């Protein structure tokens, strides 16, 4: 029977196979991954940006079975909106990449909407409103991730500036301090021997 030592290492025995961690990996945290949009003064329609990776790529642990199960927690960071006399619609899509392949994508997962329209037609000297809002969380899972696989999370924004009144304008920048946490679990866990 194997015994766990005080240093938390596992003594090797001939009939024992060990799934080697680390089983928890966190990416770095980002700067502004969504760059400034152009300043809009008229309806933009819906604009879809390119995907951007949330900081670093991480590596799946090596297990004798060759696979592990993965759960992912994502924070989409902070998003700044400078706007006046218009509406802003803002969405975030997410996807999980394993060995460079998008194995799970969920679109329109986060919603943000802002409104600074006014009821009078002659609003003068109205300053830009500045709001910073968090982009929320995303949760994902993937079973049977190969040992040593690269894993990462990407997100992209979609936005629609509209309902402009006279002198209205809008722009946005986003994703500050976004990050992802990966938890890997062995596919089989031996809990004892008879």
């Amino acid at each position, binding site marked *: 029977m194997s015994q766990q030592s005080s240093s938390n290492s596992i003594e090797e025995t001939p009939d024992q196979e060990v799934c080697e961690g680390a089983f928890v990996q966190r990416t770095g945290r980002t700067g502004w991954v969504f760059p400034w949009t152009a300043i809009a003064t008229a309806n933009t329609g*819906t604009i*879809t940006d390119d995907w951007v990776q949330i900081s670093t790529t991480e590596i799946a642990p090596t297990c004798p079975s060759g696979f592990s199960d993965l759960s992912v927690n994502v924070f989409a960071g902070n998003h700044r909106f400078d706007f006046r006399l218009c*509406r802003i*619609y803002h*969405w975030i899509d997410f*996807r999980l990449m394993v060995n460079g*392949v*998008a*194995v*799970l*994508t*969920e*679109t*329109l*997962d986060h*919603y943000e*909407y*802002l*409104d*600074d329209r*006014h*009821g*009078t037609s002659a609003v003068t000297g109205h300053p830009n409103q500045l709001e910073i809002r968090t982009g929320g969380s995303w949760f994902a899972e*993937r*079973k*049977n991730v190969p040992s040593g696989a690269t894993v990462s999370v990407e997100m992209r924004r*979609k936005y*629609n500036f509209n309902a402009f009144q006279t002198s209205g304008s809008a722009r946005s920048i986003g994703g500050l301090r976004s990050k992802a946490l990966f938890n890997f679990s062995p596919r089989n866990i031996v809990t004892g021997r008879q």
Partner: protein
Amino acid sequence: MKFYLLEEDFGGAKIGVIDDSNPAPEGARLFKTEKELKDAEEAYQKVSDKESVKFMDELFEEPTIEDPYVSMTVDEMRKFTTKPENFAKSQELGLDTKKSWAEKRICEAIYKHFNHTN
């Protein structure tokens, strides 16, 4: 590899790679090649953009509080809030009605309050 695309409410979508451990969700459309998936994604994108904007528009347009303020114009709000008998309601909204210079801000605040933009 096999792929799926599940169309969701308000233009959302769930898209993934299928294997024995990661089956497609119920109701999803299945694809044998990545090209087929990409074509379906692009086609759905057009629907998605319209549906998501429509959903947002409806959120803004739909009054969610049964209250006469909702249908008031700013001018009507101004007249309402400056009447002595309505002072209590103005205070309930957290407005300072004692200062004449605050009149415009009062109207803006009421408008935002009942349109859920603050």
